[in-house]
């Protein structure tokens, strides 16, 4: 680019805009409620770890994180596993009703989650899955599978078909071709799709709250505890919010290479 300085300036400006609300949350998490509500301060005046102590000593709080991680992991693995072959089929072949099925999949992302609540409640109660991690993981498939198929299809379509054909001529079986040749090529797509599945499942509140009560209660539902008759517990909520970022940040850190490198740097 002709103006690299402008580019850096724009990036820094955006990052500032992105970071400030998060800084404010972290800032709040180290303060007491009285201080948050009474004084404007750029950094904590009476620094305290108490809000984090509340979360790490109360099983009701920290089990929320564990529950969320369990069903999010289940959901991400399931979504990617079923989406990979489907995305391959959509990107490589024409078949009866292909366009209709593809669009039908997308329509499932367009249904307001509130629409699903009551039917899901009845369905999972009938199946005896209420308050299990599996129930939430399955329910979240509704919006994650179409997204994963969609993202992966886009990346797969970018890979020339000649690669498949060459592999067949070289005598590769389909599974071997898929795992050893094709997967490395779409690594960045898998990285992005996995991250999005993780993210959407991690932050979803309505379904997760409806389908769980005690044993599988996710952190997003536990957080609503901070609203009580005595008023909001802003400080603990901020601490809990800060902690919800951590697993996601770790996931991005792991998939960052897949996102950043793409296949331009690699074999093709």
């Amino acid at each position, binding site marked *: 680019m002709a103006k690299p300085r402008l580019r850096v300036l724009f990036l820094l400006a955006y990052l500032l805009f*992105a970071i400030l609300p998060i800084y*404010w949350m972290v800032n709040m998490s180290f303060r007491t409620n009285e201080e948050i509500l009474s004084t404007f301060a750029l950094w904590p005046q009476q620094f305290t770890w108490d809000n984090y102590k509340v979360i790490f000593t109360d099983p009701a709080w920290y089990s929320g994180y564990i529950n969320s991680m369990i069903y999010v992991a289940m959901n991400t693995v399931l979504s990617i596993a*079923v989406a990979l072959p489907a995305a391959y089929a959509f990107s490589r*072949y024409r078949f009866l009703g292909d366009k209709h099925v593809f669009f039908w999949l997308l329509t499932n992302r367009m249904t307001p989650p509130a629409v699903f609540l009551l039917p899901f409640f009845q369905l999972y109660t009938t199946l005896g899955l209420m308050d299990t991690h599996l129930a939430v993981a399955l329910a979240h498939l509704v919006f994650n599978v179409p997204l994963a198929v969609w993202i992966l299809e886009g990346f797969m379509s970018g890979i020339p078909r000649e690669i498949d054909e060459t592999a067949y001529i070289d005598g590769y079986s389909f599974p071997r071709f898929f795992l050893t040749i094709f997967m490395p090529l779409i690594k960045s797509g898998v990285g992005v799709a996995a991250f999005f599945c993780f993210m959407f499942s991690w932050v979803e509140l309505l379904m997760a709250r409806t389908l769980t009560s005690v044993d599988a209660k996710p952190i997003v539902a536990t957080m609503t505890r901070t609203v009580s008759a005595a008023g909001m517990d802003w400080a603990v909520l901020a601490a809990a*919010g800060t902690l919800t970022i951590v697993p996601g940040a770790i996931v991005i850190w792991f998939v960052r290479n897949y996102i950043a*490198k793409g296949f331009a740097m690699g074999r093709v």
Partner: protein
Amino acid sequence: MKPVNQKAWFLILPVVICVAFSAILPLMTVVNYSVQDIISPERRVFVGTEWFKAVMRDEDLHAALWRQMVYSCSVLLIEIPLGIALALSMPAQGRRASLVLVLVAISLLIPWNVVGTIWQIYGRTDIGLLGAGLAWLGVDYSYTGSARDAWVTVLVMDIWHWTPLVALLCYAGLRSIPDAYYQAARIDGASRLAVFRYIQLPKLRGVLMIAVLLRFMDSFMIYTEPFVLTGGGPGNATTFLSQYLTQKAVGQFDLGPAAAFSLIYFLIILLLCFVLYNWMQRVGTSEKEASHG
């Protein structure tokens, strides 16, 4: 042209089963509710299309729908160009790229109810950074008092929250453009603008389609953030469709009308996405043909 192969159905079967299990059954239940008056679980009366007619005549709904359209269009018009620009200005590799990637993505990972709560404090003029900053600049700002300020705050919050989604998708798309394309452009002496217009933009078509549709449908269904931040107020300034729906379903326990509303709501999103989807596909293919010719 892709080869025809009906066996490909076996590859998509797992997906179809998964999604059908969790989508078709619930949808049928909603259709079932929408044509009945549910007085109690045992007493139901078939009412036909009465709820649909009632919902269509609802003035408040028209207002909410209009607000929703304006809001979703604003979201798209700001977030898509901003996301592309951001993706273009992010470093391509190295440690700095990783750091920027994580920083950009963080806002996506905060649960939606927390986003609303944080901005509730963040926007307050007495104890929040944004509010205090604006007050310090001499701007008369109050997201609880002024309808315009509330609307703008919800929009800015959405931009803050969701632009990273567009940026990440575009960034991944940009990274998968083979170096050979750029080398060819360099040999041809193409300008930066030409590289963007004829190489990067067409290659981004796929991810941009995902970004536009995702942002459109998700902003059309926005619920938690404005609910927590403004509660739909002041007045009705930030009452969007799904909040109106929830008021109906939960507040008034009207399952029938709420179900009819859900279906109409779903059909509106479906129709708009269908139009957008086909339009973007056509733009993409005509572009491809033009570049081949």
